[in-house]
């Protein structure tokens, strides 16, 4: 966080602004699970004083922690990415019934365009379904202010509040006015309120009516909420919009009339009706689902939306102008060039495991993490990937469908953090219902893909304090897995041997591939002895290239060049290892049959 002192404003990302806003609002407890684009909120909040911040094992637990803290009177922030709210949906729908003591704000960070997600669900639908208010900021400055408003709403209306961001709010930086921290209004203490907190049918039926009353009051409140505002302009075409789409409309149609919606749910229908009467035509511009459009149309207000504005992917001013028939000028056509997908790092332990696993004729049921990149060629070692923790259930389901033919055919691959998140129950099921499948836990000690967040197996907390590290082999044994093996994934020979034994075993087994992520600070500091290719011995067989390591590349040779190097004329090229990129993991050394790879030091 950097001070731009001249303007007394700070240059903050949406996520940094949300952390700041939560701190200013007097939040004392925060819980969440990492997920792009939400992760940096808690990573920033944990650097402030007087806030307890934690990574929970999953989003359901995070929200339950939030509810408990709220019941005790604390102001609470709970953060997750859009798909995380699916995991937390169970407590969410009943949190709507219990309401709060201290305010709860739940951040749902959606990812239109799926920059880093498996789907692009529109979580505005949750607000309507769970009967909860939802606010949506357009930029970091608004996000900070909205956090404070959201807590006030939460306590005044006795409800958790959803605050939805998208990638282009969360990961956008802008100037933000900051303020001072204020204490929350509710005293922290145990206050037993069984009629409100014990959701047995008799109590819940009463609370159900309280929800209806609350939503009616909120519907009146949002009509005059300052965040919902008409910006008068040209009366021919009036835009109704919210979130980052509001900024795109301002950019594309600077002179148009605009109704900016900050309260996505409930909607200010009188204000919308008033706005509609001021303009000739109403255009709804929103990313993803026709959420505003559907509800506005249902209220009898004529408008246009998804007939013109795309419902798939992100918007930008260009797309909006084009959709509405504006001139966008001539655009250079893209030039066809090789794609540049992300890749596992040089020295990544996952690579050795996938290289070994790809040798077997099995269905590889994958999961969510860096290792999902094992799907890409040349490893091509993943056959399904659905959601956090799904790998184990999917493998077991396939095992049962195959029946007699299942032995040796299914494998689940899951990371340590994902296993903690929602893999354990899948393993319990696998043992209980007598699977023959094999679970491989890729234990690199950290939640790597989202940028290194600690998890219950890491041995440290969000602030780096030492904590219990779950003993994964003991946990699996306690579940009832009789065959739990550990291996070093950099050791390809050992890897292949143990994989074969466990895949062929007619009962469930777990393999724990133990090697730390190469980007961990202690790993970065470790002295590395890079490897190098020994050109004289390289036959150009291409085996090392099948590891897909970014440090190894192919150097093509013409027949003359091959001859000059003393190679067979038909040798088409040779491998080259970049000493700058290599971290000396030794996987390529293990797979080379021609002694064509050695330590860079020895080769000088």
């Amino acid at each position: 966080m950097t001070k731009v002192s001249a303007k007394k404003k700070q240059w903050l990302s949406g996520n940094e602004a949300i952390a700041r806003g939560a701190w200013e609002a007097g939040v004392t407890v925060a819980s969440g699970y990492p997920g792009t684009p939400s992760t940096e909120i808690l990573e920033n909040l944990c650097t402030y004083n007087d806030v307890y911040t934690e990574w929970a094992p999953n989003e359901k637990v995070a929200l339950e922690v939030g509810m408990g803290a709220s019941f005790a009177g604390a102001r609470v922030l709970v953060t997750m990415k859009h798909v995380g709210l699916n995991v937390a949906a169970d407590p969410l729908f009943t949190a709507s019934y219990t309401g709060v003591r201290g305010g709860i704000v739940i951040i749902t960070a959606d990812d239109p365009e799926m920059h880093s997600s498996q789907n692009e669900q529109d979580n505005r639908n949750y607000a309507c379904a769970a009967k909860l208010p939802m606010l949506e900021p357009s930029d970091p400055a608004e996000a900070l202010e909205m956090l404070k408003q959201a807590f006030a709403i939460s306590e005044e209306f006795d409800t958790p509040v959803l605050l939805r961001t998208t990638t282009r709010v969360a990961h956008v930086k802008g100037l933000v006015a900051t303020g001072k921290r204020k204490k929350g209004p509710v005293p922290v203490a145990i206050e037993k309120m069984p009629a409100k907190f014990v959701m047995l049918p008799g109590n819940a039926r009463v609370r159900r009516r309280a929800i209806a009353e609350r939503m009616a009051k909120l519907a009146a409140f949002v009509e005059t909420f300052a965040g919902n505002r008409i910006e008068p302009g040209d009366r021919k075409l009036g835009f109704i919009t919210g979130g980052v789409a509001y900024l795109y409309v301002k950019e594309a149609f600077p002179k148009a009339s605009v109704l900016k919606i900050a309260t996505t749910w409930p909607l200010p229908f009188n204000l919308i009706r008033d706005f509609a009467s001021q303009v000739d035509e109403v255009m709804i511009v929103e990313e993803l689902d026709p959420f505003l459009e559907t509800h506005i149309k249902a209220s009898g207000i004529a408008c246009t939306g998804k007939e013109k504005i795309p419902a798939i992917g992100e918007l930008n001013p260009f797309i909006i102008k084009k959709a509405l028939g504006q001139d966008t000028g001539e655009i250079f056509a893209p030039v066809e060039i090789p794609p540049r997908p992300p890749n596992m790092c040089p020295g990544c332990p996952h690579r050795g495991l996938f290289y070994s696993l790809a040798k077997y004729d099995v269905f590889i049921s994958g999961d969510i993490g860096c290792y999902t990149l094992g799907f890409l060629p040349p490893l091509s070692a993943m056959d399904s990937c659905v959601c956090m923790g799904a790998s184990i259930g999917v493998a077991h389901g396939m095992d049962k469908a195959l029946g007699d033919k299942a032995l040796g055919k299914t494998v689940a691959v899951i990371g340590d953090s994902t296993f903690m998140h929602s893999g354990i129950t899948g393993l319990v099921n696998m043992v209980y219902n007598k699977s023959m499948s094999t679970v491989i836990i890729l234990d690199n000690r950290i939640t790597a893909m989202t940028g290194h967040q600690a998890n219950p197996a890491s041995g440290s907390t969000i602030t780096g304090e030492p904590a219990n590290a779950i003993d994964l082999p003991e946990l699996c044994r306690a579940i009832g897995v009789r065959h739990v093996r550990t291996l070093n994934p950099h050791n390809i020979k050992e890897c292949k041997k143990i994989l074969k034994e466990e895949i062929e075993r007619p009962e469930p087994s777990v393999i724990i591939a133990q090697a730390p992520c190469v980007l961990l600070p202690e790993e970065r500091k470790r002295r590395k002895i890079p490897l190098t290719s020994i050109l004289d011995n390289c036959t150009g067989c291409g085996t090392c290239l099948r590891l897909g390591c970014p440090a190894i590349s192919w150097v093509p040779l013409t027949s003359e060049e091959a001859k000059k190097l003393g190679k067979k004329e038909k040798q088409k090229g040779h491998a080259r290892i970049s000493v700058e990129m290599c971290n000396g993991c030794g996987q390529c050394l293990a797979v080379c049959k021609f002694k064509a790879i050695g330590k860079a030091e020895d080769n000088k």
Partner: protein
Amino acid sequence: MKPSGNILFCGVGGQGILLASEITAFALLACGLDAKKSEVHGMAQRGGSVVAHLRYGKKVHSPLIDPGQADFLVAFETMEAVRYLPFLKKDSKVIVNTQQIAPPSVATGKMAYPADLLSQLTSRGLAVYSLDGFSIAKGVGEIRTANLVLVGALSTFLPVGEEVFLAVLQEKIPRKLEENIAAFQEGRKITA
């Protein structure tokens, strides 16, 4: 110099693109301008194609640069410059680092690294300033300053004085400040 503009930074994860865009943003903000920057985290790292949008002016609404609207493209890798061609317009200025990083398909010999990439830009009438950031960085004694060479080359086109950039560097660069300033100034020479 126009008091508003759109700068697209692109390259490969790990090249120092985000720091370069931050330094540029701070210099613009220090001159009293509004700015917004958009970047994508998560999957975009790990050696993938990385892009950051930086827009500045009196008041900036959209955090994204539209296709055909980038005034400046700062490409840390040659092929990446061409990837973002649809963001450019006829009078865009393109600063290209001549470094070539092979993507997986090229590294494994499945595809060739395209030849004549710069002519894809010059043949469309774009003003291209190519520089060998790695060699220049080596020359100033710190190979990790190639990103500052690119910022230096960009800086002469912006409504920001050199002294403002130097003040920002002093504030934001924790180590090897002298080398970073030298790299920045070498970059300025290329476009001055």
